[in-house]
């Protein structure tokens, strides 16, 4: 299965805008985010509820529900413009090139059909020529691959006869049955208890190595991110506030929101008396987002300019970038110092 060891860009999202047109007004769920994902790379998208992380992922796979609409930007998958595809092409794309697994395995499988039926259906949707026996064989192979034993029996069982962890394994098997290049995992471990979470993460890591697929891992759990991701995008109020390799995000966070997230997370190496520090304030009212940086009203470092203008991205090295005026200031200072020390004209960017 490791034959598709392609390299280069798998997915490129550029300045994506998604809005929901509700009776109360336009909600800019995603307000201009960009990122690249290479083949075989795992990217985490972190953010609190309502930050637009799921909406962003749903637009890749064309599952945005009305009244949600992509109103700007581009999504390019393997060199093809996803947003320009017809309905039929999107149906062909879903489940074959891009698969998705969801948060709650208890409700994501249809209760009235057997596991086997639902697995075979996923395969047959994209491979019309496959025979019944062969489809069943493939389905059983997939179940074995995701660590389910006694597959003959499982194929004939209904979802309610399986445990939550087992059902999430079935969901993963179903997602991977057509060998997708990209797997979008929308909080796949959130609804599971901790031991099962660890097992599912382990399984996904393992499968990712075997199949070399790209994964977009949506979560609000930084622990999970550290476990599985190569790089991380931090979202706040529909904006991507920070992005970078996972180590940089954890050890050199460049945005006060990321710092806040890290401080609010329990750590194994913490002193016993150390308290967790919550992020003060409440999430943004998406109907009336503040001008400037959306995090500014909750930010302890907020300056005057933060309330007026959205900061540009500042490169912090090695693909690590952050949208914060503090970093802009630092960069300007560095440039000034650099210019003063070397007495040279700063390099033009």
């Amino acid at each position, binding site marked *: 299965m490791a034959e598709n060891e392609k390299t280069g860009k798998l997915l490129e999202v550029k300045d994506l805008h998604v809005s929901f047109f509700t009776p109360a007004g336009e909600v800019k769920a995603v307000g201009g985010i960009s990122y690249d994902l290479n083949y075989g790379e795992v990217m985490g998208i972190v953010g609190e509820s309502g930050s637009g992380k799921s909406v962003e992922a749903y637009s890749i796979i064309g599952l945005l529900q009305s009244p949600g609409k992509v109103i700007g930007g581009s999504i390019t998958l393997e060199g093809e413009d996803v947003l320009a595809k017809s309905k039929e092409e999107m149906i062909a*794309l879903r489940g074959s090139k891009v698969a998705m697994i969801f948060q709650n395995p208890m*409700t*994501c499988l249809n209760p*009235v059909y057997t596991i086997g039926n639902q697995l075979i*259906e996923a395969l047959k*949707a994209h491979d019309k020529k496959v025979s019944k026996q062969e489809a069943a064989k493939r389905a059983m192979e997939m179940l074995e691959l995701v660590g389910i034993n006694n597959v003959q029996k499982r194929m004939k069982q209904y979802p309610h006869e399986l445990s939550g962890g087992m059902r999430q394994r079935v969901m993963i098997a179903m997602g991977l049955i057509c060998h997708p290049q990209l797997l979008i995992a929308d909080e796949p471990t959130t609804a599971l208890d901790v031991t099962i979470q660890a097992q599912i993460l382990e399984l996904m890591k393992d499968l990712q190595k075997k199949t070399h697929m790209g994964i977009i891992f949506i979560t609000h759990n930084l622990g999970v991110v550290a476990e599985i991701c190569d790089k991380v995008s931090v979202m706040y109020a529909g904006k991507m506030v920070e992005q970078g390799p996972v180590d940089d995000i954890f050890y050199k966070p460049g945005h006060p929101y990321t710092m806040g997230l890290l401080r609010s997370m329990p750590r194994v190496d913490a002193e016993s008396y150390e308290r967790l520090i919550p992020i003060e304030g409440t999430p943004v009212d998406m109907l009336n987002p503040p001008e400037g940086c959306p995090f500014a009203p909750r930010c302890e470092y907020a300056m005057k300019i933060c309330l007026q203008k959205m900061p540009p991205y500042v490169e912090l090295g090695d693909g690590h970038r952050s949208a914060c005026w503090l970093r802009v200031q630092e960069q300007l200072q560095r440039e000034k110092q650099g210019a003063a020390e070397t007495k040279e004209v700063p390099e033009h960017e």
Partner: protein
Amino acid sequence: MTKYVLKRVLMAVITLFVVICLTFFLMNAVPGTPWLSEKTPSEATIAALNEKYGLDKPLIVQLGKYLENLAHLDFGNSIKMQKDRPVLEIILTMFPISASIGAIAILWAILVGVPLGCLAAYRRGTWVDSLLRVICTIGISMPGFVIATMLLHAFTGGIEGLKFFPTIFQQGTAKSYVLPCLALGFYPMCYLSRQTRTAMLDAINQEYIKTARAKGLRNKTIIFKHALRNALIPVITYLGPQIAFTLCGGFVVETVFTIPGLGRYFVSSISNRDYPLIMGTTIFLAAFIIVMNLIVDLLYKLVDPRINLAKGGE
């Protein structure tokens, strides 16, 4: 499974017993006797008649006698409407007429109502949905006799050029069946369509529909395979008793179209105080509803594998 069915049969017998006792005492509590008509017979005649049909005995003795006969499937004889004809025979000649009309009515109600409900759910918020909503609200809120009378008036000569169907019901002619079946099936059709719409909307918003879409299934498969089967569960619940009622005859429709069906007899036996016929039709209808409910409960298992009948249908 067998144990479950046995349990249900036992419960059915108890239910029937209660129905019999209730009907018997209520029926006797209603003032009047079978012998009252335009000219009141003399005291002596009434006493003689009462003695002949055993109505002079205390109620509890009468009930005991009735139950004893019933154990031998003897429903007694009609004492007024079709004098001395066995009740069972009356029921068995009337029922097929009611049942055939009822069956056709419920069949078209299902075949039209369920797809219309799906359509309304699928196109919710559009003019299709609104139009269906209006039609169904009319069908549910308008009494059966209004629809029956309107149809009768319009298509049997009331409107010039639209006399397609006979005014008087004739058994065995297909034309006679059209209007009664239309009228009888209209209410269940509307009700089914509304219920299917609600259940479908509920099903469409479930997470497994999102999964199905993410799998790259076509809309048709998603609606008819994944959503409809889940949506059918509440629909079947309604269908059981409704089938029993419709098959046993819509009294109103049978009266309007002068159909000699069971439903008409069911009601006129009461106004005639034809005691054995009241008992017979009531028991028949009750038993029929009980059986239909049992069938529906067994059908659940086919549609929804989560239902475990061995544990009492939990």
